[in-house]
């Protein structure tokens, strides 16, 4: 099985590659449209700032490659946000795969809720979805983010921080998770393994 991990100007994709290696999968880090189109599975990791990342993708025409892709596709963290319609982070038009808006966490009480949302939090209201197969009830995943996707019909798991938000989204061949599965212990490994089995 060929797995392409999309290379762009985002931080620490190395840990995604290591997580895939632990599952026995060999992934290639690439920004070559041909390699991405020919892969069996595509992973779109991310960490960083939305507008810079979108500009980078457009300059390399990777936005079109991502929009046209037919094989199972997984966006992670910033990857989830870029698959949405629009992000409040520097007022950025994103890829629009999910008709969902990305907003900044605004705590009413900064003593109780800090931003970024850092640490382990629960996935709740899990949908009957292949990506969530055989997960324990309300599993914990590791988060580091200041922006979140709103709840929508495409939400397949939600998390509560300040309010409920889309922890995971799914439409057609596109899947996305806001947390970092590569850093989420056995739960994260199971999520990645489920994606590889799609």
């Amino acid at each position: 099985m060929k797995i392409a991990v999309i290379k762009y100007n985002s931080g620490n994709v190395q840990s995604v590659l290591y997580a895939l290696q632990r599952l026995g999968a060999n992934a290639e880090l690439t920004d070559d449209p041909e390699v991405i189109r020919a892969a069996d599975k595509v992973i779109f990791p991310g960490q960083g700032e939305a507008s810079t990342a979108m500009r980078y993708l457009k300059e390399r025409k990777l936005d079109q490659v991502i929009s046209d892709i037919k094989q199972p596709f997984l966006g992670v963290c910033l990857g989830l946000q870029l698959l949405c319609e629009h992000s409040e982070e520097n007022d950025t038009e994103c890829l629009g795969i999910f008709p969902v808006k990305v907003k900044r966490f605004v705590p009413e009480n900064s003593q109780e809720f800090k931003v970024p949302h850092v640490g382990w939090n629960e996935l709740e209201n899990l949908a009957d979805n292949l990506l969530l197969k055989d997960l324990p009830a309300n599993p914990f995943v590791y988060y580091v983010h200041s922006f979140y996707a709103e709840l929508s019909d495409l939400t397949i798991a939600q998390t509560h921080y300040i309010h409920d938000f889309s922890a995971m989204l799914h439409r057609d061949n596109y899947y996305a998770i806001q947390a970092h599965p590569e850093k989420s212990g056995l739960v994260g490994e199971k999520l990645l393994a489920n994606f590889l089995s799609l």
Partner: protein
Amino acid sequence: MLTKRIIPCLDIKDGRTVKGVNFVELRDAGDPVELAKIYSDEGADELVFLDITATVDKRKTLADLVTKVAKAINIPFTVGGGISTVEDVKFLLNAGADKISINSAAVHNPQIINEMAAEFGSQCIVVAIDTRNIDGIDFVHTHGGRKATLLKTQAWAQEVCDRGAGEILLTSMDHDGTKAGFSNELLAEISSALPIPVIASGGAGTMAHFRDVFTFGKADAALAASIFHFKEIPIPELKGYLGNEGVSIRK
């Protein structure tokens, strides 16, 4: 619900763990990768590696270690010790670290916090602050707590936050090594004043100390070393206790 984090800290010298470790399962008590794996399997929420050699020529050894750890464990980890430039940070993040921690370098050149946060994002920049109370006032110390500065701890914490630090690791030199509990008053003051997470360090001795630092101390995470290394407090037991005490914790 977002949970409070339990963070074991491993001191590293020349690529090996130092200070005593007392794990019967370990084949080699000095191997940081093996120790990291055990903590990760036991339910530690994160790990911190503190390089106490931290000289330039040892950097390569540290980067190799960071890569081995990143390949072996599936929880986040922070690397600190002697990091002073944007290049240092890039080197360690590329090697596989999730976050880096800076301390003395930030005091000497505060602008470096802005530069690192702009380059890599606040989420991976932890500023460690060593503090000691002198005649009722909390002052920042550097060089592993040996050198006093004129910076007041509360003001410095606010400044590093404003400059883009993603988290603060606050070590009370007055409490460190005493096993008499964390510096809850100071922690609560700083954690309440700042919009970013605060990791408490120094003074852990009993399970009740962890409960207190999360409730009275308002800490978002608590770090400890020897009580974990010597199995005085096993992590699964600590987490069971905190859960029973009503602290939100990852099981």
